[in-house]
Structure formats: C-alpha cells, structure tokens
C-alpha cells in the first residue's frame, strides 16, 4: 500500500526515473520556435491530412501529389477506410471520411491515432506495444506547449514513434536539432475536452451553429480550417458559389451540392435532386441544409435581401430542397395489427374506443368497422373479458 502511495506520488510529481511529464531538453531553444510557429506548423500538417481526405470530393486538389501528408499517413487513411481506392485507381472519400471531416479537430486527431495504434498493433513485427504507445500519447498530452523536450530521455520504442507523430503534426522536431522535440497544440490538447464523436448530421449542425455565433472556435486549431461565416452565395437557379479555402467547408458543401469548379479561393457548383438525395442518404435533413446555407450566406445575399425586402435564401430553392426531401419519404409505415370482422357496431365501437384510450389506435374507419393498432395484447385481453361477460 505504502509502495503504491509512493509510486503514485512520484508519478504525479514527475519525479524518479518514470518521467511521467517528460524530460525538458537542456539545449538552447532556437529563437524562431514560438507558440505561433508551432500552431502554424501543426495547422499546416493537419490541414494537409484533411485536404488529402477531402481532395476526392468532386474536385482535384490544387496542391497536386507532391505536397500533402506523408506516404505513411496516406496509407493509414486508406487502411482506416476514410478514403477508398476506386477501381480506376483514384482515391475517393468514404462515408466514414465524411464523418471524420465533420468532427472537432480533437476527435479527428484521436480517430487517426487510434487507427494508427490499431494498424501497428496488428503488425507484430513493428515491435511496438499499443499499451506503451497509448501511455506515451497520454504523456505527450501532459507536456507543456512551447517547451522543448529531450528525445534521448525516451525509450527506443517511443523514439521510433516520433517520425509518425511528426507526420501527424503532433510534435515538431527542428531540422538541425534532432535531439529535441516540441509538442504542438494538437498533442497537448489530446486529453482535454474530448467530445464524443459526432454523426454527419450533428457535424452539419455544429458547423451551422459555429457560423451563427460567428466564433471561429472549432476545436483547438480552428477545426479543419477557418469556418468563414458569410461565404456562400446561392442563386435562384440552384447555382452555388462559396468563397472559401477551408477543406472542411468545401467538404460540407460537397455533401449536398454538386461542386464542379474549384478556384484558389472559391468553389462553384449547384444543388440538384441527386445531390440533395445523396445528402439525405447521409442522414442530413433538408432543414439542416437550409440552416447551413442561411448561416453561411454571403454578405451580398444579406444586402440584396435587405434592399428588396426578401428572405436571404431564394424561397424557390428553400422550397425545392424541402420537396426533394419529401420525395424521398413517400410513405409512412407503422407496423401493428388490423382489427376487423366485428360482429356488430357496438362491439367495434367499444373496442376501438378502448384502443384509443390506451393510446395504441393508429387509424380507424367506423363505416368499415376496422381499425389499426400498433399493439394488440391489451386489446386481445379486452376482447376476451368482454366475451366472458356476455
């Protein structure tokens, strides 16, 4: 017991040779490496990853194959089925990929890390122990941002993990000082505010809300790029233009619009029956699409609307989106039981009234002496007792 107490205290204070909080590097820190630098670096790395995931949504990345994440990261994303190799050899985003894009940055990092652990865990030859890797990640999360740590104090296994962590943007290692590493904000926020995973539909809602409050607070790094409020123009002919470079925003738009042109700071596309249908299949509702468009409407749309005293979004488009959704919900189904062949009116009326009272009645037709109920047990009992009473 006292042993445990001692060890716990040691771990909490970072004392002894456990190094629970890492060993700060004693070397001189290059002056150019400050918080802003690390944030820029991590954001760049992470956006590369997002760009790679997103680059297959209806347009080609302007970056080409040369840049983007490291080969290892790409393979990881493919192994994790966030992107899929299509028969023609190109890469395409999967539904899991869409869900991934709409997560908070923190959840995205964890998704990727867990994939990584899984892949390495399956690969026995890597000699890496997932448990030790995980505890290393937790250690990283407890490190101080902007501080240099000593790589030599790490075990060899952990040192071998560093290149991958550099690829993910979780740590930075200066070119000319390989013996020190800096955790970035992606690493130090690993264990803070870990929201549960979002579904696609919740992701759209969250993106809408963040635009409505016009705060750029999407996770520690502004999510997958700045959510620009007021960047989308939608015309009465269903054409859509978005002035944005954000991978996330483009991905969200590609969920429900057919994007066919991409310029350095703008994408163009249109809403169509097929594109809305696809969105609905992803679990997004018409209302979510409409409120997303409303929340991201370009300043010019607001200005015109104010001048002409009309709604911000063209009513034809709004109505059509709703109609397209209705088209996909053509019938409402309720399973249950049809009661029929009642001997007389009284029998029918009493039973129907009873089922209405217990709240199982869905439909009735007094004339045909039939009704539909979604449960039958109590009605059966009711009929039995009635019969006995006769």
């Amino acid at each position, binding site marked *: 017991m006292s042993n445990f107490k001692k060890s716990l205290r040691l771990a909490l204070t970072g004392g002894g040779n456990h190094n629970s909080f890492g060993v700060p590097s004693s070397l001189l820190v290059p002056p150019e490496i400050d918080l802003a630098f690390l944030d820029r670096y991590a954001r760049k790395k992470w956006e590369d990853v997002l760009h790679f995931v997103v680059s297959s949504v209806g347009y080609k990345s302007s970056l080409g194959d040369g840049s983007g994440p490291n080969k290892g990261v790409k393979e990881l994303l493919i192994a994790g089925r966030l992107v899929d190799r299509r028969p023609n050899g190109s890469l395409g985003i999967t539904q899991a990929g869409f869900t991934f894009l709409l997560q908070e940055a923190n959840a995205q990092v964890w998704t990727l890390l867990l994939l990584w652990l899984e892949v390495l865990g399956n690969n026995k030859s890597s000699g890496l122990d997932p448990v030790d890797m995980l505890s290393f990640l937790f250690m990283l999360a407890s490190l101080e941002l902007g501080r240099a740590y000593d790589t030599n104090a790490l075990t060899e296994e952990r040192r071998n993990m560093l290149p991958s962590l550099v690829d993910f943007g979780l740590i930075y290692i200066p070119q000319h000082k390989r013996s020190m590493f800096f955790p970035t904000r992606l690493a130090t926020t690993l264990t803070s505010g870990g929201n549960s995973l979002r579904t696609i539909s919740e992701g759209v809602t969250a993106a809408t809300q963040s635009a409505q409050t016009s705060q750029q607070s999407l996770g520690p790094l502004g999510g997958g790029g700045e959510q620009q409020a007021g960047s989308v123009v939608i015309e009465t002919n269903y054409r859509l233009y978005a002035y944005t470079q954000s991978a996330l925003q483009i991905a969200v738009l590609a969920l429900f619009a057919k994007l066919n042109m991409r310029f350095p700071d703008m994408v163009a596309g*249109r809403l169509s*029956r097929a594109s809305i249908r696809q969105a609905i299949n992803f679990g997004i509702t018409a209302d979510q699409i409409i409120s997303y468009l409303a929340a991201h409407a370009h300043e010019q749309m607001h200005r015109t609307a104010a001048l002409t005293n009309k709604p911000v979004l063209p009513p034809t488009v709004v109505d059509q989106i709703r109609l397209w959704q209705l088209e996909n919900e*053509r019938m*409402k189904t309720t*399973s249950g*039981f049809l009661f029929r062949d009642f001997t007389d009116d009284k029998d029918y009326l009493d039973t129907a009234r009873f089922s209405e009272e217990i709240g199982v009645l869905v439909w009735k037709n007094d004339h045909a002496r039939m009704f*539909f109920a979604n449960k039958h047990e109590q009605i059966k009992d009711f009929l039995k007792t009635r019969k006995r009473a006769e």
Partner: protein
Amino acid sequence: MPRAIRGVLIECDPSIKSIIVNIDSVNHDFIIEDLDEERVVVKENMVHLLKQKLEDRLKENLPPVDESGSE
C-alpha cells in the same frame, strides 16, 4: 369474433398508393387490406421489397431532372 391481422400500415399520397396497388396487382402478394385512398395494410415481410419496387417504378416514370444545366 373480430380478427387481428399482423401487418404494416402504409400511409402515402393517393398517387403513390395507386402505384402500390398496381405493383400488388401482379401477384397479389403485398396487400392485406386496401383501406382507403391514402392507406393500405401490407404484409410485414414484404415492405422492404415493396419499397424497392416503388423506387424502381418512380425512377422509370420521373424524367431525369435537368442535371446538365450549363455551368
């Protein structure tokens, strides 16, 4: 003695309903009871197939909406 028949109540537009009736008319293996303009009760195990057939039928009948539209 009244009877209780297990089934699925489908509520839809009259136009959709008429298509359902039409699909059923081939083998009469979907509908248990035709209730009114907008409602039918169908066999529980056939709902999935019915939905599929309805989709197919609608695809045939709806002209491909203008997807070309000059950009």
